[in-house]
C-alpha cells in the first residue's frame, strides 16, 4: 500500500494558505475546515511550508499578539514531502520518528494532496484487519 491509496479516498482536497496571509486568517481556515494543519504554497502551488495548530500554540504561549503575524513567520519550513508511490510502512515510520503529523504530497514539485499520521494508521489498521478477516473466513468456512 502506498500514499496513492490514501489520496484515492481523500481526493485532492487539500486546504492551502499563502505565506503572506495573517495567522488570524489561517486560524479561520483551520476552524472552518476543522483540520489541524495547512500547507503553505507559493503562486504555482509548490509547497513551501506547513502551518500546524501546534506552530500557532507554541507562538501564542510566548506572545499574546499572534493574530496579526504572517504565516511565513510561524510556518515550519523544514518540509518532508511525500510521493504518491511511497510505501505506507516507510511513511509511517518516518512520520513517527520525525514527529511529523502532516505530509504534503507532491508530483513534479506541485502539491497533489496531504496525508496525516491518522490516515496512515487507519490505512494500515484496515489492511491488517482485512488480512485477519480473510484468514478467519478461510479457517471457519473450511471447518463447516
Amino acid at each position, binding site marked *: *500500500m*502506498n500514499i*496513492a*491509496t490514501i*489520496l*484515492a*479516498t481523500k*481526493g*485532492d*482536497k487539500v486546504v492551502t494558505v499563502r505565506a503572506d496571509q495573517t495567522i488570524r486568517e489561517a486560524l479561520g481556515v483551520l476552524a472552518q475546515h476543522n483540520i489541524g494543519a495547512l500547507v503553505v504554497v507559493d503562486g504555482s502551488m509548490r509547497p513551501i511550508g506547513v502551518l500546524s495548530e501546534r506552530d500557532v500554540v507554541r507562538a501564542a504561549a510566548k506572545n499574546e499578539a499572534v493574530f496579526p503575524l504572517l504565516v511565513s513567520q510561524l510556518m515550519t519550513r523544514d518540509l*518532508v*514531502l*511525500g*510521493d504518491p*508511490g*511511497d*510505501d505506507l*510502512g*516507510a*511513511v509511517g*515510520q*518516518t*512520520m513517527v520518528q520525525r514527529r511529523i503529523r502532516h*505530509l504534503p504530497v507532491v508530483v513534479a514539485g506541485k502539491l497533489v494532496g496531504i496525508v496525516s499520521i491518522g490516515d496512515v494508521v487507519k490505512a494500515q489498521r*484496515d*489492511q491488517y*484487519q*482485512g*488480512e*485477519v*478477516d*480473510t*484468514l*478467519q*473466513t*478461510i479457517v471457519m*468456512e*473450511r471447518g*463447516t
Partner: protein
Amino acid sequence: MAVGTAERPLRVAVVGAGPAGFYVAEHLLRRAEVVVDLDMFDRLPTPFGLVRLGVAPDHQKIKAVTAAFDKVAAHPRFRFFGGVELGKDVTVADLRAHYHQIVYTTGAQTDRRMGIPGEDLLGSHPATEFVAWYNGHPDYRDCQFDLSQERVAVVGVGNVAVDVARILCRTPSELAATDIAEHALEALRGSRVREVYLLGRRGAAQAAFTNPELKELGELEGADVAVAAHEVELDALSREALEKTGDRAGAKKVEILQSYARRAPEGKPRRLVLRFLVSPVAVLDNGAGAVGGIRLVRNRLVASATGTIQAQPTEQVEELPAGLVFRSVGYRGVPLPGVPFDDKWGVVLNEKGRVLDPNTKQPLLGEYTAGWIKRGPTGVIGTNKPDAAETATAMLEDAAAGQMLAPAEPDAAAAERLVTQRQPHYVDYADWLRLNDLEIARGRSRGGPRLKFTRVDEMLAALGNRARP
C-alpha cells in the same frame, strides 16, 4: 411514516456482486433497527466478481469465502439480478426511481498501462486479460494467447503477476485438479512455454508477493525456480528498513529468495526465473509486428524523503528475448455510465463511502460506493469488510436523518417488473445456485472442484432458456 420499517423498508440497490457488494449487503441486512430490502445487480449472470474470476483456480481455499456470501444471499430481503448491466439494461435514473439508496461496488475492471513503446504489439497483453480468460470470464472467452512461444516475460511481482507465472508453469494434471476454464486447460495442455520470467522493479525485500505465494513457486511439479544471487543480496538500505520496521515477513522473503538462488536445477521441464532491479523500457518488435523481447534497464535502490525505497534507473540496459509479454502493474477502475468518476485516481470520489459531486465536492444524495472502485485496488478480500462497514454506516446515518432519494416507486414488485421488462433473461440467486450445482457436478467428472460455464448463452441454456413473463 419513517422509511426502514417492515411496511416501508429502506430500498437499496447494490451495483456489482463482488466481495465489496456482499459485505455492504451483510452490514445492512443484519441490522435489527432498520428493515432493508436489498437488490444486487451484476452485469454477469454469476455473482462473486474477482473471487470467481480473479482468484487463481489453484487457490480454492480463498474461494471458500463465497460460503459467507451465500449466507447473506439467503436473507429473505436479498434479491440478485444477474446479467443486468448498468447503463445498458438499467440506468442510474431507473435506480433512482425505485430505490432510496444506490451503492456502486463494481471494482477495478481494467489494468494500468506501462506507458512504454511496443506495449500494444501482438503478443503483449494485460495480465488481467489472461487471468479473466483462464478463469472463464465470458467477455474474455475468445481471447488468444500465443502459447507456442518458448519464453514469456511477466512484468510485475504482485499477486496477479505471480498467479500468471504459476499457471503458465503448472502441469496439465495440476491444472485439471482446479476449476480452471476448460478452454484454458486445453490451450495450456498444448503450451510450449519453457521459461517464464517475473520482472520486479525494486529489490527482493520490496516485492509485493507474500511468503506463502513465494514458497508455492518453489514447489511446482513441473518447473524449477531460478534466482540470480546478486539480485537478491540484501543491500544496506533494505537491511536498515527491515530492521527499523521490524518486518520479519520481509526478512523471511529475502531468505526464501536467497535459498532459491542456491538451488541447483532439478531438470524439470520448465524454468521460472525471478528477476529483480529491472524495469521494462520498451517491448521489442520481432520484425513482424509481434513481440520479440523486452528491453530492460537495471535499477539501483535509493531512499526517498519519506524513507521509501525506490528504484532508480542506471545506464545499464539489457535485452531479454521473449515471445509473449504480460503486464501486471496494477488494476484500475472504469467509469460507470451516469456516475461521477475521478480519472486521476481511477475511483469514484467519495467521503466515507458517500459519492461526491465532482464540482461541489459535496455528497450526492442517496449514492454510495465501496470496495476497489471506492478506494483503489489494494488489500485482500477481507479488506473490503471494514471498507464496506464504513459505507454501510454512512448509509444508515443518512437514512436515519432522512437524507435519501425519494423514489417514485419504492416497491420491490415494481423494481422486479422493471428488470424483467429490460432483461427478461436475468438470473436470480436460485438460478445461480442451480448453475453452481451444475458446475460442481461437471467438475467432478473432470476430477476438479468445478467446471465453469464460460458463455452467457451456455448458462442460460443450462437454466432452460426461459424468459420471464
